[in-house]
């Protein structure tokens, strides 16, 4: 794919630079540029996904320094999928912001594109330290975005967010430092090779730092016991930012998948499957506690934030099963949950806009000024997010349940997932009832109508759930291929370092057995 691979990282940066230079030319120019860039990015991402489908790994070496010496971008099915998903979500989030939210503070679009750069970089990079750099980019950009619009609530939530994440970054740096100190390399494929060959003395420290990385990714993903920062931060963020943040937790999930299926995956010898004892139980407990949070919420934004926690728990639990089926189901669910929670954040904002001072709090207020439209959208989005038929949430749940079928933990997995769905169902029916049914006739009704761009963004993201369900077959077949590619680290290692990079452990054992 040549230079195209670097476009998802470089184009947002270029856009941000230009936006910075034309900042004084008014919102029209800003929005036009932002949208144009996003559409171009959409095309490029789609082409990249198309090109990833043949299963070949494409490597882009910055500065022409080949792996493992320089920094490489690696395009495989997973990274292409994540980049496209990010772009789609970001496109609609930014379109929603055209309703005026983008002008409520400075440099919204600049930060937004910087954030995209960080996200896409994180998904594409094949270098552990560069992943850290991308984490920094998206952390700082997201901090700026989180504060967009101002207000004490945002400042407080933002402070928690940034301090925790900076601590996480420090931990990341320590872990990467230790890994480099032990294995002497940063390229992920090379790390996988070196991990498999680590001496017993090295194994201990690599093991420690691997688990420290898990803590860092768990913090990003919002996994128990590190998710408590999320509801406050996401509920405080302005709507398009919260919608974009729907992908932020998935960066953590992605990193866990990438690092713990590749570097510490099945081929890692003594350090194989390091994350296995942790992910499933933590995921399930996160899922359960997240569901309680959904039910406990007194405010719709907060509720959606907890739905994000639920989705993370589900994903991590599924990844924790570490089979092709479960990872494939997780990928489908990842796409679904990202888009639908994004839609819900936007929708919650649109609803709050029409409820006056009560906002998105779940108590009686005046009826929204567009009840049929908003209630229908809420109904559909709620069905999707709870996982009722016929939308993508149901298909995702079906895939998850069947992927756990026959495993030792099946009963737990099914029970937690289904009970959580039940709690979410109760919670969403209560919320819908509180917002659209139990209205306060005495309250002053608002007469504002949703901005057409906002409606378009919500419609598109909600409709994605139906599309995901209708084309579930092709999507799952792609997800299956992706999971199959992901679960065997040799694919990646050979793809990046060439076919001679490492023989599988069984091959090595055979070679040692020979005289």
């Amino acid at each position, binding site marked *: 794919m040549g230079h195209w691979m670097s476009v998802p990282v470089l184009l947002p940066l270029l856009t941000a630079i230009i936006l910075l230079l034309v900042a004084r030319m008014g919102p029209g120019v800003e929005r036009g540029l932002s949208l144009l860039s996003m559409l171009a990015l959409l095309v490029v991402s789609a082409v990249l996904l198309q090109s990833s489908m043949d299963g070949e790994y494409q490597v882009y070496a910055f500065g022409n320094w080949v792996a493992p010496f320089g920094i490489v971008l690696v395009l495989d099915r997973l990274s292409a999928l994540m980049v496209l998903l990010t772009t789609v979500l970001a496109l609609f989030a930014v379109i929603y912001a055209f309703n005026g939210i983008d002008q409520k503070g400075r440099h919204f679009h600049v930060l937004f594109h910087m954030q995209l750069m960080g996200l896409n970089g994180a998904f594409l990079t094949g270098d552990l330290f560069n992943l850290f750099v991308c984490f920094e980019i998206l952390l700082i950009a997201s901090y700026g975005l989180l504060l967009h619009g101002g207000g004490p609530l945002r400042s407080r939530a933002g402070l928690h967010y940034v301090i925790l994440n900076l601590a996480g970054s420090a931990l990341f740096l320590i872990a990467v430092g230790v890994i480099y100190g032990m294995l002497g390399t940063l390229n992920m494929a090379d790390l996988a090779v070196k991990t498999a060959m680590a001496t017993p003395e090295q194994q201990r420290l690599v093991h420690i730092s691997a*688990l420290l990385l898990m803590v860092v990714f768990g913090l990003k993903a919002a996994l128990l016991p590190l998710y408590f920062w999320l509801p406050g931060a996401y509920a405080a963020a302005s709507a398009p930012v919260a919608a974009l943040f729907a992908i932020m937790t998935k960066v953590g999930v992605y990193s866990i998948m990438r690092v713990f299926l590749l570097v510490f995956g099945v081929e890692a010898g003594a350090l194989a499957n390091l994350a296995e004892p942790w992910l499933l139980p933590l995921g399930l407990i996160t899922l359960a506690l997240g569901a309680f949070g959904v039910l406990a919420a007194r405010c719709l934004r907060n509720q959606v934030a907890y739905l994000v926690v639920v989705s993370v728990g589900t994903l991590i639990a599924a990844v924790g099963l570490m089979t092709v089926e479960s990872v494939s189901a997780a990928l489908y669910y990842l796409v679904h949950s990202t888009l639908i929670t994004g839609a819900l954040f936007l929708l919650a904002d649109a609803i709050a806009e029409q409820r006056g001072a009560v906002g998105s709090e779940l108590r009686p207020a005046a009826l929204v000024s567009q009840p049929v439209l908003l209630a229908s959208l809420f109904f559909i989005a709620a069905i999707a997010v709870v996982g009722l038929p016929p939308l993508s949430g149901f298909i995702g749940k079906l895939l998850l349940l069947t992927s756990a079928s026959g495993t030792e933990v099946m009963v737990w997995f099914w029970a937690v997932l289904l009970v959580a769905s039940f709690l979410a169902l109760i919670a969403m029916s209560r919320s819908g009832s509180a917002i659209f049914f139990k209205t306060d006739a005495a309250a002053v009704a608002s007469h504002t109508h949703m901005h057409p761009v906002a409606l378009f963004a919500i419609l598109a993201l909600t409709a994605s759930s139906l599309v995901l369900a209708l084309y579930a077959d092709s999507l799952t077949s792609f997800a299956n291929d992706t999971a199959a590619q992901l679960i065997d680290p040799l694919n990646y290692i050979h793809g990046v370092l060439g076919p001679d990079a490492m023989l599988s452990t069984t091959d090595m054992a055979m070679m040692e057995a020979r005289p």
Partner: protein
Amino acid sequence: MTLLLIILIPLLGTLLAPAAAVRGRMGAAVMAGALTATALALLFTLAPRVFGGETIVVSWAWMADLGLYFSLRLDGLGLLFALLILGIGLLVILYAAYYLSPKDSMPKFFSYMMLFMGAMLGVVLSENLILLLMFWELTSLSSFLLVSYWRHRADARQGARMALAVTGGGGLCLLAGILLLGEIVGSYELSVVLVSAELIQSHDLYTPALILILLGAFTKSAQFPFHFWLPHAMAAPTPVSAYLHSATMVKAGVFLLARLHPALAGSDLWFYLVTGAGLTTLVFAAYVALFKHDLKGLLAYSTISHLGLITLLFGFGTPLAAVAGVFHIINHATFKASLFMAAGIIDHEAGTRDMRRLNGLFKYMPYTALLAMVAAASMAGVPLLNGFLSKEMFFVETLHLQRFGDWAWLIPVLATVAGIFAVGYSLRFIHDVFFNGEPKDLPQIPHEPPRWMKVPVEILVVLCLLVGMLPAFTVGPLLATAAGGVLQAPLPEYSLAIWHGFNTALMMSIIALIGGGLFYLLRHKLFDLHGRLLPNEFGAKQIFDILVKAVVDLSRAITRLLENGSLQRYMALLVGSAIVVGVYAALQHGAMSFDMSASSMPVNAVSVTASIALIVAALATVLFHRHRLPTLLMLGVVGLFVSLAFVYFSAPDLALTQLSVEVVTIILLLLALHFLPQESQPESSSARRLRDALLAGTAGLGIAALTWAILTAPFETLSGYYLEQSVPGGGGKNVVNVILVDFRGFDTFGEITVLAIAAIGIHALLYNLFVNPNPAGPHGWATSRPPLLLSVICRPLLPLALLVALYLMLRGHNAPGGGFIAGLVAGVALVMQYLASGLDWTNARMKIDYFKVIAAGLAIALATGVASWFFAHPFMTTTFTHVHWPVVGEFEVASAMVFDLGVFLTVVGITMLILAELGKLSGAVKQGGGR
């Protein structure tokens, strides 16, 4: 294809019905009726084939890997239900068109109605079990909408939520059950599942699968103890009750029992669970129905009781019982739908449904009364009506049951008791409402309803009579076909006659009729007794409400406990997590040993002194952390000693970087201190401080141990390659710089981007910020008068410092220096001007848009990278050459140096932007705050 249309046409109505409403109030109803009639006509075109014994199956692939097909099936059972759904649906639409008042939204009602109809048709016409489940859940959802139709009423909202919770929860159980069933059989297609009874019933998973599936069926069909939602769903408009809660949706549960009868029925587990639930529900609900004063309440419990009867019949597991079950489904649908409609008419015309007030309506609405009485008589099981026939078959079946052994007599006895109750409540319905004196203070004088509102009731009542008197001619073929569809096997012998001679079953009927009559005569005494025994109506609703409240309260308690908003707590968890996993991993690899002897550097006075200073400064930072200024100073000391350490270990680049970063950050932090409040937060409790100290101490020791382990381990890295390639490949002798701008230039690029974002973020953050001016503090530093000496020294220093920066940058590729360090040096020099000469003075002389500087810096870096594309090389591929300049001599030009220029500009821009932002803030404070 026709089959698909039968489902799709009503579903389309969800949108078409409201769309048609623009053509007047009746538009939605007409459209709904027309679509329903069309679907019914289509069904008729297929009916002959089904009567001929054919099972029509059509299938489209959806997710073949998962076994999910969009496959539909029309056999006898499906046909019967589709007829009920469409036929009664049509009548209900007609009825509803007149029932709804002008205040009620017609488009909304018919939209929901069509959604439900399509979903229900989907349930009964699905061949794939997952597809069936999908439609099943859709019926729950559409029922939620219909029950909550009068959204302003609290009982409607609560009823709708309860119905959704119970049936939706049941749906989740059903999903699990179906998936298990698929696991056993290897397919979700009914054609396969229905012929795999042996395989299923001998499988280990049969028990959980059956229990889960039955939970689904029982919740939907309101079987004890899940019955409670149905009476509360009666808050829905009466057409909805007539349609969903008597004729169709609640029948989905018994439909499922019938549908899976060939595959699941026959085992002991099936028998005990299904008959147990059915029998309990039959008797219990009939009893409760007796004491209901609300017309619809009575009908609701009667419905539950009849559903119990049908469930009980399917529980018997015998072919004849299944036939009886199917027959009762048909009969119950006809008489109960007409009764609901009659109740709706009474409510509509009299303004109340309370039987204590509704009396003697016969003389106000004799025609309606007649219709209602016939239907109620059918419900009671009076001969010559259809209800009698199926009840008779039911009584016969109860007598032939062997399974209960010595207790076999119990079932016919209980069945008779339920029969007595049924006669009792039916009599009450008739006598209380239409006779029994005069009405008591009704809101309005009742009269006959509009003509067309009665038509649906008439049609249903005529059906009750026809079936009751001429069963073999009317319902015979349909019953045979439907029962064949249930059994998927040849039908047993049965006779559809009114008269089977004097037998036990007839005796049971007679006992029921006489007992019911006696009961009604004694009703006042029984009401008193019931009132004394169970003074407060103890409903499952209370339990449900308590449960829901308990779960919500528990959720809130858990959530409050966990997400308490304390940053300290979250940090403690983060550090704690790191410690836990670190210790866990450390213990996984045998005993640990620290090689204390290994040390590559000799210990001498300098290193010891510096180390001690470092430790003391770090400790002091912690101890003084409540006093900001000393803390910052101590932090500066730590930084300086780290720089010195770098020098000591021969890392001049790192030392320079560390030093300049230290200077800039400390200065900026000092300036920012000005805006922080003087008072500090209250001290944490000592327990918490102990906890934090322990966590921090452990984490610190852990890091120290890690560092020690790395430093003493044999080290083999990529560094060799970098040292080797620095000059030939990167064109620079300073490996550190070549790594930064070339080998790993992309990281540097990323990091300057981070800095740029931070500066932009600070600008965005401070843009609208109002900072409380510090009352105790001095003037804002930006406008305060700087010391003269400082400004005198600083001004001439500026060009010198800039020159040094330029020098550092240019030589960076080959000797310690580089764009980053140079940028910081220049930044410090400029910062000094602000400090030395004041904000206004400096601003007047530096009219630079720092955003443009930052953008230019990033753009230069980006452009250097992209330039290599034009030489067909990847981003940031560098090149270099040597040129001979006069005076300077041999000089190396590397493209990486242009990149370094970008780094330089970005860093300068960022430093200045942050400073300027703080300065502006300071100015704002001086002017009395806030913009």
